[in-house]
């Protein structure tokens, strides 16, 4: 068998180059297909990862804890006390990188020109800076100084809509604990630049300041936590739920269903893409190899006349196909590796990030070599390529030896 391969390999390799143009076209088809699968896989994974990280870092965190009912009706009647000792201990677990508490209450913001609905977010600025990307997105002015800071930070788009800005005052209104409306004037000290949906929705003030404004006695709306490793999510959620059975503990997948479905469908998307690319490649491979077999009918007839068994003709043509597709796959791998290396400093996605705010894409996408994909997809394409090329190979093996003689007369 090995001896047979030793003699067939050089013959197969030389046969490939009998028609350099056809071999070149097939190589290009396979290489581009392989490149597109590997590059787009790396890109889609990087994009999904960037999108997820951007969303989680904005406000969502790895997970949140609320009072029961808050998620259905996030009102002042569905608040909770700050974490007790048991919950605080669970939140201080090694898997949790950081956590903080927030007051998050629907309200209204009013300028001299306009009144808009909003969500008032009372934060501890120091802790928030470790958990959220908002403090780092200040476009004008400053972020909040402390939990007692009774000024506000607005989104850029909201500030434009309210026709207000730095140094101006706005009025926040919200239902208080006594069923009435609280109303207070706040200085605008900062404007943040995030996506429009976030800018239009959230206005930030100090946590203690918001509690005072709403007449709360230390109650909060949520605990938000960030994990060191994504893999610890389910275990951490379970541990927190066990530490606070009366509260509603959810990981990000249960808080943002769109993001969760995007994350899980990414794998499906990659495989659908792989399927499409492979189908196109298969058509190219089968077409060119059938042409090659047709052109060489007389030669296969000769080989059969000389005493080559049909199975051996099949093996010989299959070796040619395996070499051809293998070289194409290798070329595609090299091309993909070089392309990914060439964008190692990141792809500027800012133009698209603005257009695709719904999925919170990061402005720079960093591609990485997905080693699993570099092993799995080339192997898969090579094997499937050989499989579809069996059809022309079988046709070659069925060439009648009499053809070689008949064409002589």
């Amino acid at each position: 068998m090995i001896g047979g391969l030793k003699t067939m390999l050089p013959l197969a390799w030389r046969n490939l180059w009998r028609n350099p143009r056809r071999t070149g076209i097939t190589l290009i088809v396979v290489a581009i297909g392989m490149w597109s699968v590997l590059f787009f896989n790396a890109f889609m994974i990087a994009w999904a990862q960037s999108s997820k990280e951007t969303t989680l870092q904005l406000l969502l965190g790895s997970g949140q804890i609320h009072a029961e009912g808050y998620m259905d009706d996030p009102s002042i009647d569905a608040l909770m006390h700050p974490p007790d000792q048991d919950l605080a201990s669970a939140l201080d677990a090694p898997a949790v990188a950081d956590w903080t508490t927030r007051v998050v209450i629907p309200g209204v913001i009013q300028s001299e020109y306009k009144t808009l609905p909003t969500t008032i977010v009372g934060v501890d600025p120091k802790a928030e800076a470790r958990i959220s990307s908002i403090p780092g997105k200040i476009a004008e002015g400053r972020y909040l100084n402390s939990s007692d800071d009774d000024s506000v930070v607005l989104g850029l788009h909201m500030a434009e809509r309210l026709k207000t800005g730095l140094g101006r005052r706005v009025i926040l209104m919200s239902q208080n604990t006594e069923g009435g409306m609280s109303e207070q004037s706040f200085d605008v000290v900062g404007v943040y630049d995030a996506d429009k949906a976030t800018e239009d929705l959230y206005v930030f003030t100090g946590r203690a300041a918001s509690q005072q404004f709403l007449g709360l006695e230390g109650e909060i709306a949520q605990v938000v936590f960030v994990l060191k490793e994504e893999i610890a999510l389910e275990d951490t959620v379970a541990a927190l739920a066990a530490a606070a059975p009366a509260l509603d503990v959810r990981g990000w997948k249960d808080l943002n269903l769109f993001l969760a479905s995007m994350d899980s469908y990414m794998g499906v998307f990659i495989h659908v893409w792989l399927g499409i690319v492979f189908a196109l490649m298969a058509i190219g491979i089968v077409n060119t190899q059938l042409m090659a077999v047709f052109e060489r009918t007389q030669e296969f007839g000769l080989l059969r006349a000389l005493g080559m068994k049909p199975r051996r003709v099949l093996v010989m043509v299959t070796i040619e196909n395996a070499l051809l597709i293998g070289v194409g796959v290798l070329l595609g791998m090299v091309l993909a590796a070089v392309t990914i290396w060439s964008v190692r400093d990141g792809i500027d996605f800012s133009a698209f990030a603005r257009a695709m705010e719904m999925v919170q894409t990061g402005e720079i996408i960093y591609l990485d070599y997905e080693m699993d994909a570099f092993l799995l997809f080339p192997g898969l394409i090579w094997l499937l390529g050989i499989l579809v090329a069996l059809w022309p190979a079988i046709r070659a093996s069925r060439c009648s030896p009499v053809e070689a003689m008949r064409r002589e007369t």
Partner: protein
Amino acid sequence: MDPIVACRGLSKTFGKGELAVHALRDVDLDILPGDIATLAGPSGSGKTTLLNMIGALDKPTSGEVSVDGQPLGGLSRSQLSELRLSKIGFVFQSYNLIPVLSARENIEFVLQLQGVSAAERHDRAMEAIKEVGLSGMEDRRPGKMSGGQQQRVAVARALVSRPTIVLADEPTANLDSRNALELVDLMGNLNREHGTTFLIGTHDGRVIEHSMRHIEMVDGRIDSDARGST
């Protein structure tokens, strides 16, 4: 002397009904060891069809062919391949060499199929090259050789496996007079020196002149079978 090839009541019909073409009609033929026989006749007389039947390339509609005492009827495709590999050498009109292989590699190819070791393959191929007068040209590919040289390689390839019989179909048709004569001489020498049996389908008077037996076919039948001396 037992014949190397024995054909009994051999008929071959292509197509059916009104379109049926009777290429061979009840042919009986024996080829003896050491024969150098020519098979001649006008186009459509059945020469190539008869060579195909004897070469185990095609199956008769009726009748039986035996090669070296082995009846071909009932053999599987794989067994027929084995038989061609071990007992029959072919020389074609258009040489039919494998273009990507050198002269030596083309000759060795048949030995590779037989599973002969690399060293022995090399020695036997070089010996065959010497025998057909192509020493020094062993590394040339067919595209770099003249028609006559290619046909010599084809003869060497047919002989290197030490077949029971060499079947040649119009081997001189694509050669000029000088190369055709040289090829005829070569086959005559191989026949005399090694006792190689040749059955040659040809129109070429020079080939017929040098054969020891001449078979004439007309309309799928053997019209005459005359034995002379080369």
